[in-house]
């Protein structure tokens, strides 16, 4: 199979939205990041998780554990915001679509702030 490249002029900021490849690229970049971070996280998480509360706190107060968790969740939230956005655009129309897309964005932003706050509290107060 041969790939016929899209002309560069069509990629750079044309069309009604002023851009269309941003989400496409971001979804793939976050996918690649998660492909590395999720296996790393699972390896570390399982051994701390099975040691109960103390094991989890001990791991999340190491710079590596805290940052790995933060980076993985950040990539996940960015990835799922785009993903659910596509699902919303496929199945919901009209004003409900705009509302659903906004709620998706707000929820993802709130989840990220909660995750960050929890990690900061654990890291500095735990």
């Amino acid at each position, binding site marked *: *199979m*041969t*790939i016929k490249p899209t002309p560069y002029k069509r990629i750079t900021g044309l069309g009604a939205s002023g851009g269309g490849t941003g989400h496409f690229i971001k979804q*793939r970049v976050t*996918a*690649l990041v*998660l*492909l590395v971070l*999720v296996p790393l996280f*699972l390896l570390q998480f*399982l*051994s701390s*998780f*099975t*040691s*109960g*509360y103390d094991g*989890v*706190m001990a791991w*999340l107060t190491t710079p590596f554990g805290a940052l790995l*968790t933060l980076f993985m*969740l950040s990539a*996940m*939230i960015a990835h*799922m915001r785009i*993903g*659910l956005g596509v*699902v919303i655009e496929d*199945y*919901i*129309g*009209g004003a409900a679509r705009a509302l659903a897309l906004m709620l998706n964005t707000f929820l993802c932003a709130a*989840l990220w702030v*909660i*995750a960050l*706050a*929890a*990690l900061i*509290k*654990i890291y500095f107060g*735990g």
Partner: protein
Amino acid sequence: MSSHWSDPRPLSPFTSIWRWHITMLTSILHRVSGVALYGGVMVMIAWLGAAAAGPQYYARLMGLMASWPGRLVLFGFTLALCFHLFNGVRHLIWDGGHGYDKKIASRSAWLAFILAFLLTLAIWTVAYKGLGLL
């Protein structure tokens, strides 16, 4: 959308007419598992929040998760994560322009299912052994 749909032309009857094949199933399940994992991330953040709130909150959440409905949901999230991960690799390979051949696409679909089940079982075996349940 359906309530505003006024186009009289027929919609693609793909799920009712076509014979079900494995690549169709992986495509649909990629979306289903992705939406499910939205909930999975919320559970993960609830887990972080409970750890930040203190041992008594953490114990309460662990109690919920250790119940049989809780375990079933967590097992489902693990399976969804593993499937979405392996099937996502298929999508990335397709983005590179490879693997579109019918037979290869079907084989990689089966491979994604098999690897997802194996990794899920591996994760739960490690977790159960670590918790002394196995």
